[in-house]
């Protein structure tokens, strides 16, 4: 029987969503073109070539190394791309993704990525085209609600603020806002104005966000509602406390 990874315990909607994010079994909700994504990331001009930091690996004459022979380089590595980042801020008010789950999604489903998890933001560093592939997946799927999450390279303030009256997470640099019933982004990650307005689509309604979120919240699905999760958390902490965490025990 083929091995099927079991990603997260629990029977609540939050546990189910966490499993979806980790296994990349996520629903695609919107379309963002490659050019729009490149513009929002702000690392290079849309449509331009990927700048490189070294020649393509095929031209470099790599040393005879069994590990290099076993591991196929990612497209970005093979082409010699620069390392660039994508950074997210997700609102505590039922945003679809928790910073840790963006990291799990990136680390489990993408190669050559370096996810960094902080309390209010999450960053993925990788070769530029690998990072863009990861970012595109996250921006187009149910992992992101344009009203409750945002691409924020600098000034990430907002994830723990109350939502605005219009239901959008506060953004100090006004990178994106509700125009009509859709979210429009017209600045890149660091707040530099773009020459275009990127339509990110409709934000999720409160009910939909509560359904798709991976945040445990006392006013939605509380952490202690899920007995199986509690049981496993206690087991993990007990084993760590007693003699160091050994996942196979």
């Amino acid at each position: 029987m083929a091995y099927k990874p079991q990603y997260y315990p629990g029977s609540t909607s939050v546990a189910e969503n966490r499993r979806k994010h980790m296994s990349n079994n996520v629903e695609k909700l919107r379309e963002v073109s490659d050019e729009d994504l490149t513009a929002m990331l702000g690392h290079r001009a849309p449509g331009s070539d990927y700048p490189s930091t070294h020649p393509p690996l095929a031209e470099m004459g790599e040393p005879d190394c069994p590990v290099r022979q076993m591991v196929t380089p990612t497209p970005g590595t093979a082409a010699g791309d620069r390392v660039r980042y994508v950074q997210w801020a997700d609102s505590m008010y039922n945003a679809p993704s928790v910073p840790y789950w963006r990291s799990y999604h990136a680390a489990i489903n993408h190669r050559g990525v370096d996810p960094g998890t902080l309390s209010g933001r999450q960053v993925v560093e990788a070769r530029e085209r690998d990072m863009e592939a990861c970012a595109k997946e996250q921006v187009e799927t149910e992992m992101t609600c344009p009203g409750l999450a945002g691409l924020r390279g600098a000034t990430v303030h907002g994830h723990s603020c109350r939502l605005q009256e219009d239901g959008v997470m506060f953004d100090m640099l006004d990178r994106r806002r509700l125009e009509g019933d859709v979210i429009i982004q017209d600045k890149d990650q660091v707040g530099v104005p773009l020459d275009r307005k990127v339509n990110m689509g409709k934000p999720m309604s409160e009910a939909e966000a509560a359904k798709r979120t991976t945040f445990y919240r006392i006013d939605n699905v509380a952490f202690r509602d899920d007995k199986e999760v509690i049981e496993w958390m206690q087991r993990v902490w007990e084993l760590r406390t007693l003699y160091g965490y050994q996942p196979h025990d």
Partner: protein
Amino acid sequence: MVDYYSASKKPIQVEIFPQKLLMPDTAEELLNTIDKVTGVLRMMIQGSSLPMRVSCGPGTGTPIERSERRIINVSGQAFELNIRVGRIRVELEDRSAKEPLREAVEKSLPIPFEFKEGFFFRKKASLTDYAKYGFKSREDQSINIEDTRLLGLSDPKANPKDRICMIESNE
């Protein structure tokens, strides 16, 4: 607003904490509503800043043009609202003004809010205030400030001219 010094009763302070951050139109309407309540001595708004320029990162210095950073009008006094209003603290001349204030806010604010009494801004000068304003003279060691209502309304290091708005009493 009533004259602070004529208040012979015991002032109380309350905080209005909306469930969501207020957009300028709502904030303007709410502040005007609060100001019309009899017995309001002073009020303070607090919230996340709406900067005019990007202050860090590769985009430092880039202007931020946003329609929400605009002039609002409270009882005929115009000032620039440069924050997203998150809480409003009000000092009332006595407890009898508390319920009228709650009713006025309930009518004006379209979203749920917390309404709690407490001690939020000081009435007496602190050591920092003395360091900033000094004594009146060698003989009179009270704080050298004309209007003690200013105490506790803004950061002692900030320029009060940019942050405090005086609304004249009708009486």
